[in-house]
């Protein structure tokens, strides 16, 4: 499934200043019953967004009109837990294109990169600065530049670099995915398979 190319993203943010946000919160298991990739955004953070009777939890940040944008800010160790790609789908489907945190869980990070959500890991100091700015002024825009691998807080005039491996970067800039790459290697793979011991 293709995704939007990612180049430079200038956007306001939604600040979720909680640590260890796990994939069961991002999308609870009971919403994993679909056989197609549709409608996951509606259930993003379902149990934090809605009460059991489906009424809205006003205090949750996604329900607060003050904050919106294509960037989700999360506390340390974002996305721990299950391998469900549905978590990344829900984030994408809701409209986010980038998650910024000071630390990501491995599988979640990989899933994001595979479906076109850019996980941006910054230092905890820088993350705190972003949170502060956004809480002070919800209209604060960030600039995430994949080309130069920098996040910029224009109102403070500061920026920080982030890591991404070259290959994944190329993919995201062009909207490619790994399957295209692997499909072109099928002959080599079949050759390799002949010599595997198991």
């Amino acid at each position, binding site marked *: 499934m293709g995704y939007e190319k990612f180049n430079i993203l200038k956007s306001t943010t939604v600040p979720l200043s909680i640590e260890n946000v796990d994939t069961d919160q991002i999308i609870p298991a009971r919403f994993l019953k679909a056989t197609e990739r549709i409608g996951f955004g509606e259930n993003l953070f379902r149990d934090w967004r809605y009460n059991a009777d489906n009424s809205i939890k006003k205090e949750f940040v996604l329900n607060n009109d003050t904050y919106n944008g294509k960037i989700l800010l999360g506390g340390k*160790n974002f996305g721990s837990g299950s391998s469900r790609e549905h978590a990344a789908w829900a984030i994408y489907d809701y409209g986010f294109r980038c998650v910024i945190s000071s630390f990501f869980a491995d599988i979640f990070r990989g899933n994001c990169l595979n479906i076109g959500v850019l996980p941006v890991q910054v230092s905890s100091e820088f993350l705190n600065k972003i949170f502060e700015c956004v809480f002070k002024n919800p209209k604060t825009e960030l600039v995430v530049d994949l080309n130069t691998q920098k996040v910029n807080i224009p109102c403070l005039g500061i920026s920080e670099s982030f890591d991404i491996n070259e290959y994944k970067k190329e993919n995201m800039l062009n909207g490619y995915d790994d399957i295209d790459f692997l499909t072109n290697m099928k002959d080599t*793979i079949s050759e390799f398979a002949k010599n595997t011991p198991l």
Partner: protein
Amino acid sequence: MSKTLFDKVWDSHVVHEITNGPDVLFIDRHMVHEVTSPVAFLGLKNRNSEVLFPEKTFATADHNTPTINQHLPVKDPLSANQLKALEENSKLHGISYWGLGHEKNGIVHVVGPEYGITQPGATIVCGDSHTSTHGAFGAVAFGIGTSEVEMVLSTQCIMQPKPKKMRISINGKLSKGVTPKDVALFIISELSTSGATGYFVEYSGEVFREMSMEGRMTVCNLSIEMGARGGMIAPDNKTFEYIKNREFTPKKEKWEKAMKYWSTLYSDENAIFDKELFFDGNNIQPMITYGTNPGMGISISKGIPKAENQDGGVKTYLKSLNYMNYNEGESMLGKKIDFVFLGSCTNGRIEDFREFTKIVKGRKKACNVTAWLVPGSHKVEKAIKDEGLLKVLEQAGFELREPGCSACLAMNDDKVPAGKYAVSTSNRNFEGRQGPGSRTLLASPLVAAAAAITGEITDPRTLY
């Protein structure tokens, strides 16, 4: 050059190395289940692609299945639809499929080893994070996302950067009442849920050498809960004994040949790890969690830690205690509980049922406790009956359910109601993991059994 066990397995599966990019890794065994595979099969269809090696993929239905009346049609239409999709996709692509009611059906990480699909030195993936379980056999096994499930189906490879390597060595002897689950919960409480992120872990030392294969599976299963991609233990005679003569393990000359390869699978003496940790097995006590991530665990007789002593944010910590309705400093012993769940790919194997039964034998289940005893597979279910455990359990007031993931993720009807407490032998105590508003305390089968009998958190060693 000296290599770690992990290096040996990983390196020998690299089809292609991309400079500044991931490795193209060949996958020997691929397990699929109904929840994370439908979109992958759909992707295959949209790309007009086929499954490259159908004989290397195995499908079982487990996550989204009822644990009673499995012979009847599945009531929930969405679940039924997902199960049907797996069956149809498996048939269409010639993948072996162990659906509901099939004698080999069970939780993906329980049946893999039972039928010898899991083998030392193999690369094994599944769209489920607890695929790390298979590392107990010296395999490199880890969970993948749905895009990657599609990659494996269509090309038998995935693209992954090679993780760093960590070794956790525990020597000494475990005292009575201390199980592999406690060892794992202890390690996670020391490392936190992100302490091994970016690493692949090898467990070594006397404690793991002495451990049964079931116990090793429990430990490797929980590797993901400290953030590790996976965990593994070098295969030894115990491993070979376990897998010998299972349906999918090699036979005769092929076995001899495989044994030659398997006997090379250990970390060389001078192999270098990016990180090494050491713990003393003598100090580990029965554990229990009190919060909303598996790192929030303590020795059962200790008090709930103070917020100020937490490395993570105080705010997050207090939010978690608030969710559990617990306070700093309180003792866990004596806390009332409502549910007990024995099962999951962490502790749903025969050994776990044996341990549980030991405690409840000759006693009665507390009236205020609802207990779900869910075997990990039909094979486990059969053993429970054949070994006479079922009788003992029934005499103590317990019932046995049919196999599946059940309350581990509560996708089916096995949901703990909001606000209720469940002592669970599964692997995650996240908010709402066992049903919206549910409160989970992770523990060993022994602690679960003790709680089921007394209706409150009890040190199982007092019931021996």
